């Protein structure tokens, strides 16, 4: 947590628009990527809904910038769950076999591929993990939450979240290292996913 974050948060809570803009720019990328991991391409819409609520409730927030990030993540998570319930259909997020091919191949091409790996593709890759592992990794990596804060967002014990994150990294490493690609993992955004996200409550 740095002084810029502290100042932006305090200013925004005092009604300073410039401070709010700075706060938004600090928080939104991570929030958006977290949501992308949770629900895929509707992340931008759900992020907008989250900011509506963040702005409304900003006056009543108490805490430091780290706590603010966790609070924003919790709001985003609720909006994501609402969104999944609302859509009630089964959009399938494309399997990432191309993605895995880009990063997991042998030879010199892989370094080039890594340099051009987009942020969105990296998030999508993480999102191929089982939901709680993906979420644990994303909360830590893109939102910078520590294990206890991530645990509060997910409604789990810190130990469980730590384990989930470590397992997630191990699984990812294995996939990236695989010489034969695993079967494409199609992550269906289904009510099962809602259940998986909900079960942590």
């Amino acid at each position: 947590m740095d002084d810029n974050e502290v100042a932006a948060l305090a200013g925004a809570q005092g009604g300073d628009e410039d401070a709010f803009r700075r706060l938004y720019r600090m928080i939104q990328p991570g929030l958006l990527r977290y949501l992308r991991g949770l629900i895929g391409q509707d992340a931008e819409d759900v992020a907008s809904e989250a900011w509506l609520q963040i702005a409304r409730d900003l006056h009543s927030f108490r805490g430091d910038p780290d706590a603010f990030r966790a609070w924003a993540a919790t709001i985003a998570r609720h909006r994501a769950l609402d969104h999944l319930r609302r859509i009630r259909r089964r959009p399938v997020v494309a399997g990432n076999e191309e993605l895995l091919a880009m990063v997991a191949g042998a030879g010199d091409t892989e370094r080039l591929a890594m340099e051009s790996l987009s942020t969105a593709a990296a998030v999508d890759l993480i999102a191929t993990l089982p939901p709680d592992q993906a979420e644990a990794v994303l909360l830590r990596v893109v939102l910078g939450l520590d294990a206890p804060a991530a645990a509060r967002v997910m409604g789990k014990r810190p130990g469980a979240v730590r384990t989930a994150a470590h397992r997630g990294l191990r699984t990812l490493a294995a996939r990236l290292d695989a010489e034969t690609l695993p079967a494409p993992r199609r992550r269906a955004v289904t009510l099962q996913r809602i259940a998986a996200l909900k079960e942590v409550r």
Partner: protein
Amino acid sequence: MSTQPNRRPTRRRAEHLLAAPADRRPGNRPADEQRGIRRPDGTSTLAAVLAAARRPAQEGELRGEEAALAAFRAAFPHPVPRTAPRRRRLSMIKTAVARLIPLKLALAAAAATAAAGGLALAANAGVLPNPVKPHAPQGSPSPDSSGKPTAHPTGKGSAPTASPASLQGLCRAYSAVADNPGKALENPAFGALLEAAGGAANVPAFCARQAADQPGNAPTDKPGGKPSEHPTGGPTDKPGNRPTGKPAGKPGSAPTVHPTGQGR
């Protein structure tokens, strides 16, 4: 457990990879992670993936900034000027011009602030002012002077916070949060509107009267945009003429746009 001991990142390495870049101990980071060279255990590629996920804001990720700012303005209708108090008049004018009310009204409001202690402004809004207010008010479009994050000018205390500009702004903001108007009114930022309207149930009607008071002002046209020219609104212009905010001089006008935003 694993037949290849180096194949999976260890717990310690996992924690290192997960930690925020600033928290990493400098000695611990393998050099080839930077070059993107893949080691047999795959972890440097993993590190590169995580690093890609952590990059600063990318193209398009900040697209929602203006919408978020609009939500912020709806929640915080009394902006904080960053100038010293003695220049409040000038900052009021700047703020007003940038935001909600035409310059004419802003200048008039500024003059009234200096001259009449805000009573004329409050009278214009149709809100009976607190008569005990000898010094310049805190509550016209200037901030809560204590600067505390929770201390919004909600109409408690002695400041007559309901200037016509801020009530207009609140009505506009109210219609902007039309997707959940009930909850929006729980936000203390709307306190001045609730007080002026005399309760949550009266807000739609109150805002409708506000719009009728200022014909040509279409509250839902452009949330946050300037209203059209305000023909009779200067507080120096017969402040006694509008005791309770009923429409004056424009009997036939009705708001053409429903200001409460229902059904938007």
